[in-house]
């Protein structure tokens, strides 16, 4: 790799192997623990349950015993859109969410957000969550809160940050050691690390040395709602055609995987 390429901006992203994902929920739990995600007494209404990482269940709609299910972990897709105009970043009126050209990460500034929820309306992935309630930990359990991630107050929007604090931590360490570049394994998200099936791979999509660079080129790779032009940084891989087809909206005559908007 040339020095010039080394300096190229990073585009952190994921490749998730849906044929390996077992729907066990370890990624969700790891994410909640890592990011001080609050929890309520009843979380069975999934429309108001904060899960930065949410595992969706897909079904092929066929009759028993031809029925099939597939799980699809959905972190924030960190859309690049066209030139950094991701659906949410471009609509936030208070610049409380931003697209980093350095890392490709869509950030959320909790103390800036005033809770208009326009970004939630803009996100087709439902990756953004609103704090409808004050976050409350049962007595004594606030001891489990990590100082790396601030606790969010009521009335604001939050979402997956690709564990950005881990990137900062790794960069701090690298700087102390006089390095400007991170090795692939120095910055991994909590969900990636936790997945017992090894279904999630995380890295710099621009870096040919990283595993994601190669994995995303698989003919079975696809992105969610690619034809909307959201230009996401989370790729999915599945050998099953029906799963790949479920990743986007298709008209009846269209062939799976051949309609995506160009980026």
């Amino acid at each position: 790799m040339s020095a010039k390429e080394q300096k190229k901006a990073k585009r952190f992203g994921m490749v998730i192997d849906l044929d390996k994902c077992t729907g066990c929920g370890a990624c969700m739990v790891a994410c909640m623990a890592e990011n001080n995600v609050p929890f309520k007494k009843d979380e069975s209404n999934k429309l108001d349950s904060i899960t930065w990482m949410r595992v969706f269940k897909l079904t092929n709609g066929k009759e028993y015993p031809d029925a099939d299910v597939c799980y699809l972990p959905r972190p924030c897709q960190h859309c690049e859109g066209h030139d950094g105009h991701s659906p949410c970043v471009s609509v936030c009126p208070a610049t409380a969410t931003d697209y980093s050209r350095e890392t490709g990460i869509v950030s959320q500034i909790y103390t800036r957000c005033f809770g208009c929820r326009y970004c939630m309306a803009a996100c087709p992935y439902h990756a953004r969550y609103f704090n409808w309630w004050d976050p409350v930990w049962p007595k004594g359990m606030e001891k489990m809160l990590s100082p790396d991630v601030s606790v969010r107050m009521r009335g604001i929007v939050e979402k997956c940050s690709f564990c950005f604090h881990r990137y900062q931590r790794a960069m701090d360490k690298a700087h102390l050691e006089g390095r400007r570049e991170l090795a692939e394994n120095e910055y991994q998200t909590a969900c990636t690390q936790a997945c017992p099936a090894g279904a999630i791979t995380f890295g710099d999509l621009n870096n040919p040395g990283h595993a994601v660079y190669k994995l995303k080129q698989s003919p079975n790779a696809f992105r969610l709602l690619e034809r909307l032009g959201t230009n996401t940084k989370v790729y999915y891989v599945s050998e099953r055609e029906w799963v790949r087809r479920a990743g986007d909206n298709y008209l009846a005559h269209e062939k799976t995987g051949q309609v995506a908007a160009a980026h």
Partner: protein
Amino acid sequence: MDSALIPEGVKRCSFGKFMVFISIVSAVLLWGVYAMLLCWLKGLNQTNMNDYYGFALWIWADLAVIALGGGAFFSGFLKYLVGKDELKNIINYAVLIGFICYSSALLILAIDIGQPLRGWFIFWHANVHSMLTEVAFCLSCYFGVLCIEYIPLVLENRQLNKVPFFHNFAHNLHEIMAVFAATGAFLSFFHQGSLGGVAGVLFGRPFAYREGVFVWPWTFFLFTWSAAAFGPCFTLSLTKLLEKISGKKLVKDNVIELLAKISGWMIFTYTIAKIADTYYWAVVTAPGKGQTLMEFYTGNAFYGIWILVLEVIIGGLIPGLILITNKGRKNKYLLTTAIILACIGVSVNRWVMVLQVMAVPVMPFDTWALYYPSWQEVATTILPVAYGVLLIGISYRYMPIFPQERELNPID
């Protein structure tokens, strides 16, 4: 008891009767205020909104009142810039309605945001690429204009007008009102459009997304157009309503018919544009994103194609056709039907562009999300209505809103 405050030469109901009216409306208002305080103190968990319905009843109410309040800027535009001078006989009322609508819209926004105390961040940390920023700026500025337009009305109250400064101030504001009206129209063209842009730019939501020119999606123009078209109908409906309640003719028919005619042509042309937009969207835009028109109107318990018919045909084409014909305008029954249908039509449009946008699933494996508002949401939505009724009541009683009232209802 309050006769000294009542404009000269007009008759008003007794003070007692007025107080009964005020108390009843205030009770409703207080109910709304209670709900509003609940939302502020306990948070938005008081509503039935959720992560799929980040925008719900309030935002619809917001968009609807701004569209309906569009009568103010458009009448101002017609009177001061186009030179339709007859409209001076209804413009005060249009301004009052506009003032109510816009102050309500701002109040609703203040309840709707999760962190009202940080609401000013929208100005302070403005993202100029966001349609909402544009809405907030223009809305606030235009509200300022409406205040300026409303102040002289207040100052023309019999007692206040006795204060020389107030008298002069009201007079001077009137003198340069055209400048304010022009600024107001400019601002309105933008914020009405930006409100349309709010939904139109959502390229992640094929149901809402529209192509357009430069940074403005077609909905930008459609919203401005529709506000200008339907807003006067709301002014007319409320005029009719007030006439019915007061039992008096307040505005001459020629004025009403003029406004109805202009509105009618605006509605008619708007509807044609809307049909063209819908057609293009159904045939090109949505299929380009992999979705067919009927996918947006099937597979759920509420949204069917009926809502499109209600909006475009019943609430658009029909009132438009009635109002552009002389016969339709002259027929009292048809005129009333048309202006009411028009108000419904534009409200349904705003509903669709807010709530149906949230309801339609985008990811193929996602499901429709339906929602019904909580009582707190209903109460806070009724709050501005009660406030509007109250303000119209007080303004009508104590201010010279209708210049033709004395002439039409001479008292001995």
